[in-house]
């Protein structure tokens, strides 16, 4: 490379490298500046938080309010850290401390400032006022919140509806119901953006049982979105009154799957035994999540009349439904055992039986039945033996063999040898050999030896097959 060319090349590469360094240094500077700024802000917030925390502790623990605190509070209302702490304190405080905090806010003039801000021309000021009026729960602010729930700004309306949800007043209920009806007309063309139905639903859920009765007619004749919202509210606010139960049972036959699912959920929470049969019917619904909620509800209700349907649900196409049904049967315990045994004995569908056995293995149901073997004289122990024999017959021997090797009680191990004695798979024979040589209990060793001897005298499946051929 000639001298001039080399210099030019060095210059080109040098300028490029320099540009790369400048770019990286600039980016690193940006990153460091951001980091330093965020750390400074954080430190400053921490200092202020510590200062305010002492004031809050004083107000919350001491019944009397120090007059010196009031002017300090009026200054602090413009500080975000203070407001965060105040919101946190209002959420955590008991009723007495909460009323003291609210009284202090009113004496400091904060509620008055918020009410003035509710008339601001800026939407963010109005939204801020709505949020804090809701948090403070001052009765003076309810009228402002109701006015803001019909504000021109979408965001202010959302915040005001959410804030109204946290307050208790007879004036609020009609406002929220009207908002629900309006939000349900989401498909109709509207001049302004509607408040999302989730916001209204959350506000109505926060109102609790007070709004349940006026909502019931909407569960029958309102648009789908409203029906879904009402069913959702009823699932969060379980109410055992007869009209509510009747409405929920009706909703279980609704045309919309979401309404049916929520109704099943609500019926489970209500604990209505009269709902067992409709819920068992819902186990054959077309939507998987309706079946899931019905199985969950039946697991909560724990009623014997649902057992057959739950056993049938063990072969559902959705694994979540199968798992929930198995869990529900496990909760039913000994009551469910005869039905399961009958199903395994009588059903002609091999795949269904294998599926049932698999689902039972995935819960602790079989373990619990193995533990019941200790009480062999009782009816439960006898039923458990029958069921486990069927489980073993359908090829699920590993879990039993594992228990045979590890179960602490010799009685249970002996019963397991008895249950598994009819199985002649190599796995079982190998396990019997292990038990025969290594088990601590002489009775178990003898039982295993007896099972092996009986097994060797008995014609094996291959022999039977050859004879049949």
């Amino acid at each position: 490379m000639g001298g001039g060319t080399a210099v030019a090349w060095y210059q080109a590469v040098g300028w490029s490298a320099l540009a790369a360094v400048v770019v990286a240094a600039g980016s690193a500077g940006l990153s460091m500046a951001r980091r330093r700024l965020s750390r400074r802000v954080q430190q400053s917030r921490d200092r202020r938080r510590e200062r305010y925390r002492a004031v809050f502790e004083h107000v919350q623990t001491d019944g009397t309010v120090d007059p010196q605190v009031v002017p300090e509070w009026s200054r602090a209302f413009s500080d975000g850290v203070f407001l965060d702490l105040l919101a946190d304190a209002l959420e955590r405080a008991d009723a007495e401390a909460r009323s003291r905090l609210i009284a202090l806010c009113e004496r400091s003039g904060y509620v008055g400032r918020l009410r003035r801000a509710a008339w601001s021309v800026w939407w963010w000021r109005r939204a801020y006022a709505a949020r804090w009026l809701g948090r403070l729960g001052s009765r003076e602010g309810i009228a402002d919140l109701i006015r803001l729930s019909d504000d021109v700004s979408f965001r202010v309306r959302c915040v005001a509806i959410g804030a109204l949800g946290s307050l208790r007043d007879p004036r609020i209920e009609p406002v929220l119901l009207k908002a629900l009806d309006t939000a349900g007309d989401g498909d109709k063309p509207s001049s302004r953006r509607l408040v999302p139905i989730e916001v209204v639903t959350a506000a109505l859920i926060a109102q609790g049982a007070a709004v349940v009765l006026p909502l019931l007619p909407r569960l029958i004749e309102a648009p789908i979105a409203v029906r879904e919202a009402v069913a959702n509210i009823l699932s969060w606010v379980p109410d055992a009154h007869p009209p509510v139960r009747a409405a929920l049972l009706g909703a279980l036959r609704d045309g919309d799957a979401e309404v049916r699912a929520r109704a099943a959920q609500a019926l489970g929470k209500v604990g209505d035994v009269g709902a067992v049969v409709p819920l068992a019917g819902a186990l054959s619904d077309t939507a998987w999540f309706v079946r899931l909620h019905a199985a969950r509800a039946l697991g909560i209700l724990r009623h014997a009349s649902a057992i057959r349907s739950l056993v049938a649900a063990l072969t559902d196409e959705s694994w979540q439904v199968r798992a929930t049904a198995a869990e529900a049967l496990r909760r039913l315990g000994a009551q469910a055992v005869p039905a399961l045994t009958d199903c395994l004995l009588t059903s002609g569908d091999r795949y269904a039986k294998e599926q049932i056995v698999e689902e039972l293995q995935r819960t602790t149901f079989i373990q619990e039945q193995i533990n019941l073997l200790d009480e062999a004289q009782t009816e439960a122990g006898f039923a458990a033996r029958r069921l486990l024999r069927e489980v073993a017959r359908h090829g699920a021997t590993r879990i039993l063999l594992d228990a045979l090797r590890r179960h602490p009680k010799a009685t249970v191990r002996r019963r397991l040898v008895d249950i598994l004695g009819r199985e002649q798979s190599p796995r079982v024979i190998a396990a019997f050999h292990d038990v025969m040589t290594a088990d601590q209990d002489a009775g178990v060793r003898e039982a295993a030896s007896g099972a092996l001897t009986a097994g060797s005298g008995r014609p094996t499946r291959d022999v039977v097959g050859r004879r049949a051929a």
Partner: protein
Amino acid sequence: MIRQVLLWSVQAAVVYVSVVAVVHLLLAVTGVWSVIHSRRYRDAPSRSGRGEVSAKLPVSVVMVEQGDDPTVADRIEALASLDYPAFEVIVVSDGPIGAHLARAMTRLHAAPIDLIYRPVIATARVTACYHAATAPNVVILEKQRTTSADAYNAGLNAARSPFVCILGVGSRLDRRALSRLMASVAEDPERIVAVSGIERTMCAAGAARRPVPVLWSVIEGARTALTAAGLGPILGILLPPRGCLLVQKKAVLRVGGFVDRHGAEYADLLFRVRRALADQRFPRRMVFLPKPVAWIPGPESLTGLARRYHDRCVGALGCVADHLPAGNALLVGWRMIAPLIDVGIAVGVTAAFRWGLVDVSSLLLVWMSLLAVRTAYSSAAILLMDAMLAEDPSRRDVGGLFAAAVLEPMIYRPMAAWWTLRAVWQHHRLGKHARLQPDPTTTPDPQPV
């Protein structure tokens, strides 16, 4: 004549480098836009196109354990406690259960059970199934040792959910990964067939500071995330991830799962799914979610980085060769051999300058594009990751990352070019050997139907 051809070649190289630089800058812009746009996805949405669904779609997470990984217990426990309401974890042990997995199983109170295993995709024999009593959503399969592709296929067979999250070897899922991935699926569960997200590199356990190979690995991850976020909205392409991939089980079964010869290469699976579903009435979608979903282990040394890059390159080149001339295969192939092209152009243009074929402005343009623009893109990716993850890294980490970003085009890129060259050579040799018949004595027993 020769001089003219050389001149045209050099000019083409200059144009190529400039176009790539401009495309990278555009990708940075679209990537940032995509990140801002993606904020509409909440982490736990339940609203789909058909309305609110009161129960979330279940997911099966498939994890393959090979070589007795000492961290397997922590990984399984982390998976079992993911923040999602309906999921199952299927751990496939490729080969006999090792000491560490056995210890993990004892911790989980796993007991052997007889599960129904239907080999929809043919795999080697599954010898045992275990179910964890303390984590009822965890199932462990023990199968004959074969390949990682076969192990993943066994996991796919055992998966019961319509969506399967396939976890890379050694990777971990973010606690909210399933919520994030399924949030985009919930918008259109029928059409979305694959989702992936940002994968972050983790240091070795107990490491006080990040070594240089890890820094380069972090930068590469950040660049890949920015590129994927930028390309997604423009071309609808999902760059093949390394850590985790959420796929529609139906679509994967339709293409027969992973193929042995590519060693569980996600790119190959995505190409085949795209091709198989090309005739559908409504186009299927593959989504990149610009949110962190997985952690991949960082290389412990430069040798580890080289080995990993080389393996990835060999796998990607193998599947790209099978799927050419598909557009996305071209893109993946180009990304793999780009270091080689860049180094070739740098050397070629310098030589051309020496012989007087190009002037100093072209030389400056090429070097600016190769050094400054690449550093700018890396810096943008790092800044975006920092801002998006809202982290507060130490001063040393920030300095180290940007220093590595400056050195990356000068040191890492030529090394990557060398590793790529070796991978291309090995791929060429493997192509010859693939024509030989496999040894029948090493063929494992197939799982009986």
